[in-house]
């Protein structure tokens, strides 16, 4: 479990997160900021982490292209042969 008040997430690390992971972390950070009173230095780290995650989430949603694979079931293939 990452302590978002002390660990600054790296941009390149965030880029590897899928939407669910980034969204979960963002949710965690939002709750942390709502419930905890943090020293300024830690608040700034949390803020930076949250902002980067939020931007990543938005980017994923806005740039997503639907990927469709098409396969036939074995039975159909057998029957058509």
């Amino acid at each position, binding site marked *: 479990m990452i302590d978002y008040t002390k660990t600054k997430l790296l941009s390149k690390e965030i880029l590897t997160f899928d939407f669910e992971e980034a969204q979960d972390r963002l949710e965690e950070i939002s709750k942390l900021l709502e419930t905890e009173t943090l020293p300024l230095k830690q*608040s700034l780290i949390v803020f930076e982490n*949250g902002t980067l995650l939020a931007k990543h989430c*938005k980017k*994923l949603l806005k740039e997503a292209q639907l990927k469709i694979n098409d396969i036939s*079931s*074995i*039975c159909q293939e057998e029957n058509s042969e």
Partner: protein
Amino acid sequence: MEIWSVKELIEYIKTVLSINPILKDVWIESEITNKTISQAGHCYFSLKDATTQINCIMFGGTSNKEFCENGSAVLAHGHISIYQPRGTLQFIVDNLIPQGKGHLQLQYNQIKEKLESEGLFEESRKRKMPKFPKHIAILSSPTGAVIHDIINIIKRRYPLLEITLINTSVQGDLAKSDICNSIDISNNLKQCDIILLTRGGGSLEELWPFNEEIVVRKIFSSKKPLVTAIGHETDTTLSDLASDLRAPTPSVAAEILTPNKNELIESIETKISSLNNKINTDLSMYDEQITHSITYLQTTRPTIKTSSEKVQILFNNLLSYNRQKFNLLEDTIINSEKIIQSLNPKQILQKGYSIVEKIKTGEIVNKTNLIEKNDKIKITTTNGKYYAITE
């Protein structure tokens, strides 16, 4: 010639009918009409063809009496008898098997009862769908509007979801084995986290593969969460009962399974605002604290000011004191000067006096015996000196 009474004749016919091996074990395929139920719970109806009909009775407690509905095609089993009070022929039915739609309904009920007793439809075993699904396998016919509707909805709502279409027969004889195979394929797709088994609306016969026991059991044993959306809202197949989630229609399934992209973006923007507000609040708080500290420091300055004022006052007092002292001294000096002035011998000369000095000794001659004859003297007046010799 033998003459019978009505009763004797009817009783004879009844006996003949009861011992006739054909008439005591009869199957009739026909359609039910004129159904009524007596107070005793017996069911009276007729079985009819295009031109002929026969009165029938099903006594209370006979199995499958629920399929006795006007217009239903049935296969009825029973024996032929005669109703003595009226002398009418009747078919006493002891079993009724629905045909066509009714037949399927009976099978449906039987399979349902069996699988239900085995716990295949237990609500407690149904799994929750992932909140942010990554990969969905859609098992449906590749032709038709259903699949396009689903793809469009997913594209609009949550394009992050990868779709694998598994072309599957959803109608006809091949459907049940095809559906089972497709479920197996989906379960072997590593990334897949939801399976959607779907097709559009159809008759009970068309939807029948989804009531097949083999299909229902396959759905039950799916390792991955499986959603069904079969037909319209009013069609509930046994597959629907066994799946983890039943959507009323294919389109609704696509909606239920995907989060809404726009709502997510909105929620993320709200979070960004919250983050900004929070950090601004924190910064304001610290700013306020610093301002407070500055104000506090400033409020301590009056003490310094007071001290400074005191010093000034003291300095002024000192100055004033010195001034007074100085004035006093000055007065004294002036007075002394005046006194000195008044004591200046030259002042006296103004009044007509002269100062006589003996030149030789420089003595002031203020007595007669100090001077002798031929002494040289200097006489000082206000504006000059005279030198003389005494006689």
